[in-house]
């Protein structure tokens, strides 16, 4: 294993690189397209805890200027914007900031439903480098729903100010998805974030998300339920998560299973797959 220090040096150099990269091709091709979301090729969701600078990331990517107040929950509506990279157009959906996706509140319900039923091509989870532990709670939940995730470790400058060093490479290795260090306020790391999102969507970067280890009796219950769900809805990528939600008594997921909505989702994913063979690879990689 690398010493933590080398990883930190690496993450810092990544930041510096991103900042110096203003003239490099990847950055030159990033076009901020504001609210013009028509005819986009891919949908990217932006999730994250409140107060992680999610709105700053949104603004930095789309060139929009959504107001960034420093209090929890100021993004009370779902905002949409767009950006383009290498000739492809991406629609960016800013989800309400939430601590978790266990549908305790309306915001969490909105975010969860979009990740599950909106089927974004990639989900960027913005995390606060100064409180990674709490933010990872949400990341782990998102990883249960979808494989195509990029973790944006934002507020790297604040972390440094507070005397915390974040080893982004180790984080990425542990989570099984790419992690990108950023300082969204000064647009550092945005180019790398965008190219990583594109790479995940194109299948150039394969992900194998970390699965949460549950206590034995919970895992047993999941193992008892997940195969039944896979039999009923073949091709469902997140049967394990559905099992967890059913065990927790999630009303919306129960309904989705009863009404056949989940089956429809799985069908849509299967049909989309031949057109984008990369997706099949990503799915196979996960199973």
């Amino acid at each position, binding site marked *: 294993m690398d010493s933590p220090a080398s990883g930190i040096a690496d993450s810092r150099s990544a930041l510096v690189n991103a900042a110096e990269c203003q003239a490099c091709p990847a950055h030159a091709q990033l076009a901020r397209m504001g609210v013009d979301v028509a005819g986009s090729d891919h949908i990217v969701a932006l999730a994250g805890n409140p107060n992680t600078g999610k709105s700053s990331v949104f603004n930095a990517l789309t060139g929009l200027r959504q107001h960034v107040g420093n*209090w929890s929950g100021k993004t009370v509506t779902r905002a949409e914007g767009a950006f383009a990279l290498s000739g492809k157009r991406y629609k960016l959906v800013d989800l309400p900031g939430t601590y978790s996706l266990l549908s305790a509140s309306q915001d969490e319900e909105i975010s969860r439903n979009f990740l599950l039923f909106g089927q974004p091509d990639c989900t960027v989870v913005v995390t606060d480098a100064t409180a990674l532990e709490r933010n990872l709670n949400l990341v782990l939940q998102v990883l249960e729903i979808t494989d195509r995730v990029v973790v944006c470790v934002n507020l790297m400058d604040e972390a440094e100010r507070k005397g*915390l060093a974040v080893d982004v490479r180790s984080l990425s290795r542990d989570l099984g998805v790419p992690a990108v260090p950023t300082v969204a306020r000064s647009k550092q790391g945005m180019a790398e974030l965008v190219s990583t999102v594109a790479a995940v969507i194109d299948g150039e970067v394969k992900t194998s998300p970390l699965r949460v280890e549950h206590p034995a009796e*919970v895992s047993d219950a999941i193992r008892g339920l997940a195969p039944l769900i896979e039999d009923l809805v073949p091709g469902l990528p997140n049967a394990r998560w559905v099992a967890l939600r*059913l065990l927790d008594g999630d009303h919306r997921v129960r309904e989705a299973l009863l009404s056949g909505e989940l089956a429809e989702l799985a069908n849509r994913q299967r049909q989309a797959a031949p057109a984008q063979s990369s997706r099949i690879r990503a799915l196979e990689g996960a199973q």
Partner: protein
Amino acid sequence: MPADAQVILDRSDTLRSELGGSFRDRMVEALYQNAQRVASRSVRATGAGKWDFDQRVDRLVTSRWLGLPLMLLLLGAVFWVTILGANVPSQMLASALFAVEGAAAAWFESLGAPWWLTGFVWHGVFRGLAWVVSVMLPPMAIFFPVFTILEDLGYLPRVAFNLDWLFRRAGAHGKQALTMAMGFGCNAAGVTSTRIIDSPRERLLAILTNNFVPCNGRFPTLIMLAVIFVAASFPPAVASFAAAGAVVGVVLLGVAFTLAVSWALSRTVLSGEASAFTLELPPYRRPSFLRILYTSLIDRTIFVLGRAMLTAAPAGAVIWLLANIEVGGAGLSTHAIRALGPLGEAVGLDGVILLAYVIAIPANEIVVPTMLMCYLGGSMMMDVTTYEQIRAVLVDQHGWTLLTAVNLMLFSLLHNPCATTILTIWKETRSPRWTALGAIMPLAIAFLVCLLTAQASRLLL
């Protein structure tokens, strides 16, 4: 297929009962254990850093003795800066725009336009716009950026933290302080921001009482009255402080009404006790001034001003028409003012003020312009641009007293929300009953309070 799904659901129910009722606890515990493991491998403390500084600031702004005075001082400072900075630009804007009105009207006449066209366009529509721009733009252009700095610093959640005890006693949620802060900008925005309150009962309280925070549309009224009637009786050196103090006083009165009404609602139609409460105190962030200027000027100032102008133009037209359409030897507005007169007198106001509030239902911003246009009538008093001149018109020609000023401030603080806010309440609650209560209750309170002060002052003085 649905039958199979039912089997799965039943199986999940059975498994859940077997796990014994604490499934959620164990699931979240596992999530955090995993998160902790991952985080501990990738995060390392390199030193103390500047964390201590944040904590020291926090200890100061929430301190037992200094927390609340500091808050009042900041609030006062924001108003003081606004009043001090807005005074001169307001007058300059007014004289410039009224010069345009005069010149353009003369130009129309030289072209041979009929008197009613000149009057309607320039003394009606344009004058309405000119008043709104000159009265509103300078205070907003100063207030919004200054307030946005406080917001971006992360100070507002500390205010909620400091005041939560009061809200708890009133049966409400401390985050209501945050939604009230948003209400300073615009009550409609304040009502929308109540979504941050999770529990429906406390959220309704916040929606129904947001109106008691004077929004930017009402600030100019308060500032004007504070300057004309309060500051005027102080020596010039401290006049601006006195005016700011008066505005702070009105805001505090609004807070008192918010708490009292929340308390009353909590014990009647919205009975219950405050439930879950969590409030995140985010770390302080250095505000980025360029973005603040941009968002507060474009998103807020121009947006609010644009809305005000949209309603001011037709309002100006209406006022001009009311003044110039004659029925039975007098203008329509004269009839309306005469009809509203007795009610106005009873509550310590007058007919013109009430008429202005009726016309200003779409947007509170146009109350002062409407009032002044009614008072000045068809007269061509272009030179009424400074506060001293306005004071002369109100006091000397229209018999305003200190009671009129105080009651207008009270009425402005308490009266019904504007049409946009009422619509927003409907959108957020989807209930005609709560919307009606949100509109009628403040109006009733406003009339009642004004009636009481009017009667009390008449008894005592």
